[in-house]
């Protein structure tokens, strides 16, 4: 839980005032609550809502008002509803400033896999393949290693891809990477994490930002 907290608070700093943002299903959705309301951030839900509000009170639950994770939500003033083609026109057309998505694996060249484990688990890609191609910036948040301790940041993804070279920024409980010249660069260590630790738990090769090398 503390690791998750580090991830969420670092992810929050990616969001600037006035941005149009899509938060993926699962952990990314938890960021919504933390965005200062005076930021004027508009959250997009790919099922057809721009301007997601907080979870409703029990008596305000509306089955016609859900987010992409099928959770009941509310709308904020200035919200707009639209159909799925318009929703993905927004996404594919480069109108969404930022997408924050969960990940199963990220490769050292910024590939992302997050929709299927062959023979074992199929969730489907939903809107993820569109988001990683269409959003101006794609941030992936995930635990640095699996529950079994296996690396999730790989030389190459072993799972079917969601997109190739699409991860602009990767935030884990241990570190932050940015895609630079087509390769992951370690740019930040999370509080309490060491370079040695990150090296040990990362299969991928990565470069290290100058600022970190000096440290």
């Amino acid at each position: 839980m503390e690791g998750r907290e580090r991830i969420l608070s670092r992810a929050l700093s990616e969001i600037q005032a006035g941005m149009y943002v899509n938060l993926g299903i699962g952990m990314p959705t938890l960021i919504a609550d933390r965005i200062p309301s005076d930021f004027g951030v508009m959250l997009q839900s790919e099922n057809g809502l721009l301007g997601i509000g907080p979870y409703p009170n029990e008596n305000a639950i509306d089955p016609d008002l859900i987010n992409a994770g099928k959770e009941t939500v509310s709308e904020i003033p200035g919200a707009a509803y639209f159909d799925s083609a318009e929703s993905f026109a927004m996404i594919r057309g480069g109108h969404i400033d930022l997408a924050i998505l969960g990940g199963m694996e990220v490769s050292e060249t910024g590939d992302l896999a997050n929709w299927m484990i062959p023979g074992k688990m199929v969730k489907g890609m939903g809107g993820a393949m569109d988001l990683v191609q269409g959003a101006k910036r794609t941030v992936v948040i995930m635990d640095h290693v699996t529950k079994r301790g296996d690396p999730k940041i790989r030389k190459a993804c072993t799972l079917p891809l969601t997109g190739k070279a699409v991860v602009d920024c990767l935030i884990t409980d241990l570190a932050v990477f940015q895609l630079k010249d087509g390769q992951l660069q370690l740019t930040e260590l999370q509080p309490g994490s060491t370079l040695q630790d990150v090296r040990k738990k990362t299969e991928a090769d990565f470069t290290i930002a100058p600022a970190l090398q000096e440290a």
Partner: protein
Amino acid sequence: MNKVTPTIDSMIEQIHDGASLIVGGFGLCGIPEKLILGLRESGVRDLTVISNNCGVDDWGLGLLLENKQITKMVASYVGENKRFEQQFLSGELEVELVPQGTLAERLRAGGAGIPAFYTATGVGTPIAEGKEERVFNGRTYIMEKSITADYALVKAWAADPIGNLVYRKTARNFNPLAAAAGRKTFAEVESLVHTGALDPDQIHTPSVFVQSIFVGAGYEKRIERRTVAR
């Protein structure tokens, strides 16, 4: 012109074994629940269903899956539908997984007479396999083809007798795209108003896309994930 039918049977009996159906809705939100129940009742088989999701185990399109009425499913998300996942992984059900935005655009193209288009979505992934790749302005795209079907089944909030439809909140989702992409479109609606009562500036699906309307009562509108403020 009056497209209202008093019972859903006149719609259901047109849908034959082996038919292809585009079904509106996202999750359980905005699904044509009466039409789905009618299909379940009718026992029509070998259906190809194009819909973003396939309901849940005991509601929505999941009912047709349970009854083995669906032979092929075109969808973007399996999600927490255990039966869908099982039938998919076992190969019992033919499944074409399509990215959600590509599914929306393929339906929109089908309704708009565009046979194919290019998108960057899916490039470099299993979705791109067997598809034409092409570079425009230095970026790689794949060609995707439009989808039309024998029937579109949609759910709207309100209709007038000539077939203009208005949807409510996120229950709109794939419904307007489905309505335009069906060779015949059947709409079930929660309320009927007189012709002229809908603001012409605010109609989501113009009447030309709708062939038949049924006014349902007592909608269940089940909720998949009831989340409330803490």
